[in-house]
């Protein structure tokens, strides 16, 4: 039996321990905010926080999350007011929006964990997340805005 906390709620699971967290979240818990894009750690659409670290849910077997705390886009904040979420809305970052949950989770972890963000930090970390619509310039701008809001 695997037990884990997802967005503050405790869950247990006795199915296939190999099942990636992505499908557990989406199909078993109905938390569809976390997206499928590639299944092989290439696109970041499935980015979640596992014990606070940005993690690709598509390649993380649920067994690894045993005893861990998982946070998804639905539980990033109660009111949708993380500085990253606010900046995303302010700058109309999204196009189709499909990649954005992953982008926001990646960016939130980056902004929260890095006090003096450089352009290089942003490029390096955010290059893990693909956006087919091409929202990168706005993602970059929004992260800078969020980082500033954080330090204020």
């Amino acid at each position, binding site marked *: 039996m695997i037990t884990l906390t997802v967005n503050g709620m405790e869950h247990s699971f006795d199915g296939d321990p190999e*099942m990636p967290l992505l499908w557990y979240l989406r199909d078993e818990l109905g938390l569809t905010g976390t*997206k499928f894009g590639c299944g092989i750690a290439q696109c970041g659409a499935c980015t979640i926080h596992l014990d606070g670290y940005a993690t690709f849910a598509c390649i993380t077997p649920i067994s690894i999350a045993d005893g861990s705390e998982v946070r998804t886009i639905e539980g990033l904040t109660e009111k949708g007011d993380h500085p990253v979420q606010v900046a995303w809305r302010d700058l109309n970052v999204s196009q189709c929006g499909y990649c954005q949950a992953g982008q926001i989770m990646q960016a939130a972890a980056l902004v929260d964990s890095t006090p003096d963000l450089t352009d290089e930090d942003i490029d390096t970390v955010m290059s893990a997340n693909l956006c087919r619509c091409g929202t990168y310039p706005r993602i970059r701008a929004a992260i800078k805005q969020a980082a500033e809001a954080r330090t204020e």
Partner: protein
Amino acid sequence: MSNNPVAVARIANVSRRSILLGLSAGSLVLAVGLPTLSRAQDAPVEFGADAMPNGWRDDPNVFVSIADDGIVTVTVHRSEMGQGVRTSIAMVVADELEAEWDMVRVTQAPGNEPRYGNQDTDGSRSLRHFFDPMRRAGASARTMLEQAAADAWNVPLSEVRAEGHVVRHAGSDRTMSYGKLATAAAALPVPDREGLRLKDPATFRYVGKADIGLVDNDDITRGTTTYGIDVRREGMLYAVIARPPVFGGRVVSVDDSAALQVAGVERVVRLDPPTIPAEFQPLGGIAVIARNTWAAIKGREALVIEWEDGPHAAYSSEDFEAELEAAVQTDDGKLILNRGDVGAALAEASTRIVAEYYIPHLAQAPMEPPAAVADVHDGSCEVWACVQAPQVTRLRLAQRMELPEEDVTVNVTLLGGGFGRKSKPDFVLEAAILSREVGAPVKLTWTREDDLQHSYYHTVSVERLEAGLDAQGKAVAWLHRTAAPTIGSIFAPDPRQKLPFELGMGLTNMPLDIPNVRAENPQAPAHTRIGWYRSVSNIPHAFAIQSFIAELAEATGRDPLEYLLEVIGPARLIDPSEIGDVWNYGESPERYPIDTGRLRKVTETVAEAIGWGRQLPVGSGLGLAAHYSFVSHVAVATEVEVVNGEVHIPRVEIAIDCGAHVNPDRIRSQMEGAVIMGVGQALTTEITFQDGRPQQGNFDSYLIPRMETAPREINVHLVSSGGYDQPLGGVGEPGLPPIAPSIANAIFAATGTRIRRLPVADQLRS
């Protein structure tokens, strides 16, 4: 199309419907080619939204509802795939309605064109075709509210005025809220279109304003949106399908015993292969149905299938490239343009320049792969799907399920990107077939491998260009041979010629100021499914033509900007039908002439912005391209830096003239996105085939740009001409075609190496 965007053309829609009407393949091709000529002589020729299947509607009762708390709900009938159409249409309606933006909500229409008008979200035409009808819908609703207030106060209509979500009586300064008026207003007749008062555009509060937040911003940033892949229904099962690895293949035998042992797998279902032409039929194969997606994927891996590969088993990109190259060497291709006497002019020219360009297959690869949920039971079929063409989806479901159209409901979710892929409802049909088979709701998911290996691929082209220059270096003869499999191949058995709508994407409608022009189209068969991809045939045409013009400049020692402007020629209005394009994106040639003045203007805009002519360090260079598509004029200037054979792009300047701006922020975002997609096309993205099988399976081999490979800086210039009473141009697609040639031209300036084959990949590595 689009997206966006995305990529589909009006004639293409005619073709979809034509098949439904049971036309034979032969007449289909004719109908596709020359819709206006196949009409009765005296019938009025229709253009724009009038010519689309099911046309347009502007009935406020269909598009606007107001609750007694004042909340205005706008029904958007076009699919949202990132182009911002849900926001833009709501802006138009809300503005004419004099509604407060924070009181406006959006709901998505199901597939039902008799009710909503055309819903094919492609061809960059949602606002082009629906700006006026949506203005009228908003204005009619506003007039009905005013009338209801006038009736309540017993004063003439002329004395009341709607503003800020209330109706005010000027004389008495009484006001009544929209919520209070809603019921009475709804009971009133819809005012006549003729006498309707539209707002003076100078008083627009939302239209043309850059600071409108997306209606889906809150849901997207909180993860509460619903895309096709997110839909959940009570008792739903999950499916994936093993499809024939080669288009046209079929299952010979299957051993599903191991698959059925996988925990969670419930059923294995065999699906029939399509008949040819395949159109939007599912590809057949073996479906695994399970209690969750993971079990379905594991079950599929455990299948042992023997395939028969069929007629395209030998399809190889390498061989096919050689075949296309051979085809463009001969002069026996179909003649598609002939002005002046190219043969004589070439013979007399002082210099002759020839170049050939190769543009590969591409996959749209929307970030959300195709996915749909279907619930088929007791003579009804309901689906939830990310489709660009909801009505076509409905018609095809009705046919396949043998149900009347009324018993088929197509709920349109958000689309996680479309780019033309989701114009084809094959994946929705798959879900419905499986739901009917197992008697439960089924979610069908395409994995990324499924998406990249069973796409409706962008075609593959060889373009051969030859020019004759006079003693001054001016182009006097132009010969273009284009060979590429046609989109018509999914609608008819083995056509080998490009259709007029494909040729009208930047070839037959090229405004060249050259006296002798000839174009030929040698045959090319299709060995896979060919489909629309954002901006479609404009991709190869623009790449070849804009590269070639820069090559001519180089050959004559002239400045590429000056040479490009010379080839475009002086500012003038060109009737596309007079230069050989009968299609013109389905628009009237009078309302939508090609305007070389506008093309020059956008070109000069980006040249100035990039600092054209400035000195750059060794290894850096500037490139230009201009292209007219989807009745908009676009130019791009790119700066590249080539280091150790790797191309970096510090800056791109892009200018579009698409007429008046409805949602300037979304025009900008579409240009930004087009630039980045274009960078991928130029540098890395390619689908190749070997033994009939696509060689790319996921984002580790189909390389789309990442933040670190995208341009550092993209500046969008909105060059506006004409007011809101002038025709609007497309936005979702026209940004894309000039990107790749501008990059290739910049690479030449930086390195002296001319890129004639896309993508660049490692061509610059020594």
